[in-house]
């Protein structure tokens, strides 16, 4: 029988302590260097989330928005393509006549139930008018009730595309049931 030093617990304890202590002192040195301005990054690898956001990929599918025409009216023509293709059945459209006879229809209501949405992006692909996009960069939608997860046409129209760095440019919409 050979003597395995690892069976003697104490040595392994000390090697473990050396590892964690090395981490502590290295990170502590970095924190101190950051505090006195000698370094631009601190000792932590974490992102301080509400203040800092990690850059999102431009392909990221985030909160939907409805694109406007130049006159500010929705580009959507209420063709129901997105409502039909949606696997989660979370889009609800009521069509209306458009005052301009060149344009067939306009949505009177355009609701997305984000509580049901699976963020597959099929609605964006199905849209013949490029009227719905998922490029706001907003991921924070929460509500105290199911009703609060239903985003109306007005809310979706008010959103802007995210900036080049993937950060949202429009404020995160506050659902009706949550008073800020």
């Amino acid at each position: 029988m050979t003597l395995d030093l690892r069976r003697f617990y104490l040595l392994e304890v000390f090697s473990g302590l050396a590892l964690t202590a090395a981490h502590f002192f290295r990170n502590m040195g970095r924190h101190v260097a950051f505090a006195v301005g000698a370094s631009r990054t601190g000792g932590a690898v974490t992102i301080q989330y509400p203040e800092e956001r990690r850059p999102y990929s431009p392909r990221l599918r985030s909160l939907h928005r409805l694109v406007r025409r130049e006159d500010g009216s929705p580009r959507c023509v209420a063709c129901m393509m997105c409502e039909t293709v949606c696997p989660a059945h979370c889009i609800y459209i009521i069509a209306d006549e458009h005052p301009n006879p060149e344009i067939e229809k306009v949505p009177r209501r355009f609701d997305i139930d984000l509580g049901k949405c699976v963020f597959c992006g099929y609605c964006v692909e199905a849209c013949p008018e490029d009227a719905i996009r998922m490029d706001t960069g907003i991921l924070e939608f929460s509500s105290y009730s199911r009703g609060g997860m239903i985003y109306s046409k007005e809310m979706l129209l008010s959103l802007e595309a995210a900036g080049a760095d993937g950060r949202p440019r429009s404020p995160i919409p506050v659902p009706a049931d949550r008073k800020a």
Partner: protein
Amino acid sequence: MSVVADLGIAFGRVAFVMLFVLNLGGLLTWVERKQSAIMQDRIGANRAAITIPLLGPITLLGLFHPLADAIKMLAKEDFRPARADRFLFGFAPFVSVFFALVAFASIPFGDTLRVAGREIPLQAVTLNVGILYLFAMLSLGVYGVMMAGWSSANNFALLGGQRAAALMISAEIAIGASIMGVIMIYGSLNMQDIVRGQGRSFLGGWLPAWGIVTQPLAFVLFLTAGIAATKRIPFDTPEGESEIIGYFVEYSGMKFGMFAMADFLETVVIAGMTTSLFLGGWQVPYLGPEGFHLPWGWAWSLPHLVIVLLQVGAFVVKVCGMIFFMMLIRWTLPRFRYDQAMRLGWLGLFPLSIANIVLTGFLLLLWDAR
């Protein structure tokens, strides 16, 4: 007049120890969060803020978190199970905290201070059997835990209390037996005498005769058993914050906070004990009652007050260093399974500490026969 002065001095000695232990215990919640964060490449508690008009919110490295925690604990519902034992349920957290607090009383934080013709021992209580008192208070602390487990009218809490009791017994035996070696070397049960004895030099004056030098095995055994006595990771089988149900399942609010606090206070006490018994207590290397005396003959005499301040400072630094080390262990090692902890206590620490006593006695005989 002199009675008032005596009372004031006695009060000051107790207040120093009390405030030292209490504040350190409270701060440890912050230290634990911050130290673990830095070890794990995180930042840690940094959100609790106090908003000052014109200056905006200040967070002060998250130092307000213990304060916020205390307010939260006090504001929470104080729940008591319907079938719980009314008296013991409320009494248990008190017992836990009380014995952790009073244990520090016999640990000396400095040598005798001579001011205006008075000799003030820098120790809350001067006891001839200080080490036994300390040991007794440490053991009594587990009664709070057992009471909590028993009085909660919850079988899981009862099992947790029993695990705590079993762990405590197997740890206390090793603590007592490993201390024996130190008592044999320094020949006293008085904590102050033990610390004074560690001021002697060793190996031709180069090495101070601290307990860690004269009793290295006892140091490792004592520290292991001492960490087990604090009921923290790697010996947290009684509670197991994250997954096992422990003795304080039924506790909420400040009563729960007191149990959590007791663990930190015990950490301070064990750190104080380790410092006093093994790290030379308030001794500063090469600092005698007149000043520094280095082994190659260089000397630097200092006034009495400066020496006392240096000694108290050394004690505080050593205790804080010990706490850092215990936190390091707590955030490094995984938890021992219940049977592993028992096996370590009864088949590892206990026989080794007995062997240490025998070895120490043998070496002392050889030393004297020389």
